[in-house]
């Protein structure tokens, strides 16, 4: 009845090597993409994906053999797309498009989210929210436009944000972009000391975010942060006040479900209905 301690196994070693080679290929793909050679980048990326698939197969064989590790099941094949989306969106902290979320997740964690799958994810969120009431601590919900609070198709937010941060006002597009830029700049500074790989990826992401306000390659994240903060000082206040009032208005006539998922389009009632 006394369990003998488990033997360390070689297969785990093999999984580690496969993953690191896949990471190298992805890095080369990113560099190719920067140099504009997109299809070479995508070919490299496909090879990286192939390595990762083999790593997963080896890993599932290892797990099935040893009975002590929590077995490989649906919620354990690596952090699910939903978990990565929530983590990335949580750190960005502002309503973001599926593509922006996927880019952030890749830069920050090196995990791939197929952003095309996110809209279907949202349908699943609605279904699970309405079925047995809120059983999940947080849901991925659409941002809401500011006038009639209809759901905005290409912007996602999290249900545990206050309404004020999920509604889009006239200045919100810009202020949210600035807030995301500041957040990524801070990440780059911090990641340099902790995870140089992620720091490099985040640096290139930051470049994409600042292409509008600054275009040189060797960006200094601290300067980017200051510039974004300065601009935010100007338009941040009116945006905040507008969103507060919109929230107060919304709380006036939206019910709990609408406050999360947005008001429905007014159905056109035909004569016979």
């Amino acid at each position, binding site marked *: 009845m006394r369990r003998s301690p488990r033997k360390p196994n070689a297969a785990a070693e093999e999984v580690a090597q496969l993953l690191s080679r896949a990471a190298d290929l992805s890095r080369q793909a990113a560099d190719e993409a920067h140099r504009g050679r997109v299809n070479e980048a995508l070919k490299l990326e496909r090879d990286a994906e192939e390595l990762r698939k083999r790593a997963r197969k080896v890993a599932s064989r290892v797990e*099935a053999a040893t*009975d*002590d590790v*929590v*077995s*490989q*099941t*649906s*919620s*354990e094949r690596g952090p699910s797309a939903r*978990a990565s989306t*929530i*983590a990335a969106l*949580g*750190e*960005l*902290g502002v309503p973001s498009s599926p593509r922006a979320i996927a880019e952030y997740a890749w830069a920050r964690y090196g995990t791939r989210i197929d952003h095309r799958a996110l809209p279907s994810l949202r349908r699943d969120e609605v279904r*699970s929210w309405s*079925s*047995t009431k809120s*059983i*999940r*601590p*947080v849901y991925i919900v659409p941002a809401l436009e500011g006038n009639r609070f209809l759901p905005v198709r290409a912007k996602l937010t999290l249900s*545990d*944000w206050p309404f004020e*941060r999920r509604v889009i006002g006239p200045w919100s597009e810009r202020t949210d972009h600035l807030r995301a830029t500041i*957040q990524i700049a*801070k*990440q780059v*500074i*911090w990641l340099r000391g*902790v995870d140089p790989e992620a720091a490099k990826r985040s640096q290139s992401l930051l470049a994409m975010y600042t292409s509008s306000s600054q275009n040189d390659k060797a960006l200094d994240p601290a300067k980017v942060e200051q510039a974004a903060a300065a601009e935010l000082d100007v338009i941040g206040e009116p945006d905040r006040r507008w969103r507060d009032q919109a929230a107060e208005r919304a709380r006036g006539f939206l019910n709990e479900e609408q406050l999360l998922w947005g008001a429905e389009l007014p159905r056109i009632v035909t004569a016979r209905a």
Partner: protein
Amino acid sequence: MKTTAAQTSYEAKLAAIRASAPARSPTVRVLAAYAEHSDCNLATLGFAAGVDFDRLLVGTQYEAPFGQSPFAFSRGVAFERMIAKHGYALTLELLREKMDFAVDDAKIINLRQAYQKNKQGMQMRANDTRTLIRQLINGSPTAPNLIDGAVLQASIGGMPAFFEADALAARFGGPIHAGEVKSFPVVDGRADRDKLGAALDQVSMYILFAKQLVESIGANPDLISPVALIITPMNVSLTPTLSIKDVSKRIGRAERLLAKVPDVRKIAADIPPDISFGPIATPTAPEASRADALHVLADRVGTAYSPSCLSSCGNALFCRGRAFKACSPSLTGPQAIRLLPGVRSLDRAAELTDGAPPSINEASVAPLLARAGRLYDAAIAGASPSKNRRAG
């Protein structure tokens, strides 16, 4: 109790949900365990469908270590035999000495031996108990003073259920008292506070059911006294002693508990048809697929793990595994959740102690975690471990 068509349909639905999983009828101990984590939808579903979570995962690495020691069982049986010896002599002596009941010509009925231990037996014992209580209330000469092994019927979340109260219903003039026989000892006027609390909650449940029974007979429920009797061994030996406790507050809790148990009919109606414990329970299926099935079920229905589940729910080891996989602060408990508001995982909390820039939700706790990390690293570096660890 005529079974209407509607009733058979939801019972069939619940049976389908339970499928081949081990069954368990709602005893008071099961109700008390459920009350500890009524916020967990999986536990609610299991309770409604009558699934025995203690045996659901037998044969997997998550099997619950709840086996009872045969010596504890035999001590309980020996103690109950001691109480019933020579026509409940010791019990009556205690009732005379501690409650000053006039016990000299007490009439005692033991319903336990009269019928078998199955559903029909329980139904008959419940009918007998009802008749005996009615006699007690009407003061008929044949009414007993002491009923051992009364069975009270109640509806739990709309499900009819029988509760074998090994309690004694004692009446010597004055109100009827419910009691409970327990084998933990009272020494120097003190008992194990958690075991005593659980025992009093159990008697409060019996008192509540007894009040409902008296009310259904049309008499005044106050005929059932809110004072509970607990018979336990005193000190080392099995000599019984009687402890008397007013449990009015706990009866209120029992009422609230019963009101909160969700209606099984509603659960049966709400649950999508393909939900079932079957694939989880089949002992022959490979462990990975049984765990996989439970993960799917848990994802769809929702769970609420907390360390307190480890001492009351058979699925706890499985849910702890899920909490670990999700890196959830619930692994450490509600205190950690209180100290990490807005932080979704323990990994993320660790990053924040290294000074990671926080998201807006994490803004309130991030400075505290970063400062704690900074002070800790400085203090540990200052007292470098090599200096603090002597050889050997």
